[in-house]
């Protein structure tokens, strides 16, 4: 049984993630097949493709929600015995927020739930500041707009820092100003040796990001290290 108390993931920083021949099935059908990529610390991977090409499926598989039918993911460096999922943040379409609780309460909960004693963790107030919602801390999340809820969800990344960010269309519902702010945060994360794997249509302003194109029709991996 891996130690329940996860040692802080970045005692030794994670050097790289490499995946070979990944295949993920859903409903008996291979949605994603033959995916390879290799990321070093500080690099980003843009997962591109039409709707239904399997972008979300790939990210969910990496986050451990879906089993990998074939292939495997290698982590080098970072704390042993902790899976990729425990060193990653996943931001999907749902924000993981409880409407009845206030933004601060939600973030305080996630800070303690995804507990990690890393120095770079921001306080819930600081995280809200980072996404420009400092004054909305004690409003019930139910009263916030879709864009604001999205930013509270993104604030979770700062409250319990983890090296890998798995972002599934993070820019939806964000306006220009917030997208710009988040692009800066991503750059800072990469500068600190973090990894970003983002499935997106909108340009995220990720400089020098590798691309992985999943094309549904040919169901063949075209991408590779750009």
């Amino acid at each position, binding site marked *: 049984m891996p130690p329940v108390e*996860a040692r802080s993931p970045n005692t030794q920083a994670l050097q790289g993630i490499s995946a070979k021949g990944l295949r993920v099935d859903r409903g008996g059908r291979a949605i994603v097949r033959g995916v390879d990529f290799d990321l070093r610390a500080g690099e980003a991977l843009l997962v591109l493709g039409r709707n239904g090409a399997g972008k979300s499926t790939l990210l969910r598989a990496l986050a451990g*929600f879906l089993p990998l039918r074939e292939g495997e993911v290698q982590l080098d460096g970072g704390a042993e015995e902790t899976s990729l999922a425990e060193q*990653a943040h996943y931001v*999907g379409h749902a924000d993981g*927020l409880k*409407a009845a609780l206030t933004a601060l309460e939600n973030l305080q909960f996630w800070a303690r*739930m995804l507990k990690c004693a890393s120095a770079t963790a921001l306080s819930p107030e600081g995280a809200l500041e980072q996404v420009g919602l400092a004054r909305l801390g004690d409003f019930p999340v139910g009263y916030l707009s879709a864009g604001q809820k999205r930013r509270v969800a993104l604030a979770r990344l700062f409250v319990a820092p983890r090296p890998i960010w798995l972002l599934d269309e993070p820019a939806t519902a964000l306006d220009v100003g917030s997208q710009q702010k988040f692009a800066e945060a991503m750059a800072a994360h990469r500068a600190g040796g973090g990894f970003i794997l983002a499935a997106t249509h909108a340009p995220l302003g990720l400089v020098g990001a590798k691309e992985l194109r999943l094309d549904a029709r040919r169901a063949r991996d075209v991408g590779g290290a750009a």
Partner: protein
Amino acid sequence: MSSPLLALFGRELRIARSVGGGGAMGVVFFLILVSLTPFAIGPDLNLLSRIGPAILWIAALLSTLLGLDRLFQADADDGSLDLFVMSSTPLELVVLTKCAAHWTLTALPLIAAAPLLGLTLGMEPAALAGVAASLLAGTPALTLLGAIGAGLTAGLRRGGLLMAVLILPLTTPVLIFGVASASAASGGTVPFHTPFLILCGLSLMAVAGAPFAAAAALRAREA
């Protein structure tokens, strides 16, 4: 280790309080079920007091189970469940904490209300104490078995009814020994502690086994 689970426990209580009487709804359902029986059987208190424990136990069983289908549904809908799977705390402990929170919110008020409702069925104090004790020992098993059902049906549209159909057969031992120990409390051939200890055994078995089954059910939901 405990701080994430304590945080989860606190959050469950806070949500139930702010969303309005989360627990209170279960007690009202329990009150209605108990009051309906005399309408079917008649106002004769001698008859009612004999079957009092059975009425209270069936009502407790149904209100505990039917309150459970929302246990994972809300978290599945808003994405919290995915994040639990990714947290360093094992999903089994998350399930156990949610069951503990749900038990505190619904089963405890039920156990407090049962003796009062027993009065309307003309039961004497010994039987009331017996019912309360047996409910205290039996409801953890009901909550945990219900959690397995909730895990299986989280995300399905008509999950509630299906969950009851799946889990009710599994709760028959708890019901049998529950009513047996409640009736034994007010005298009778069987001494009180025999069925009561078996009931406690059932609950402990549920505490040990159910979280793994429920967590597996939640993980299987995705694949």
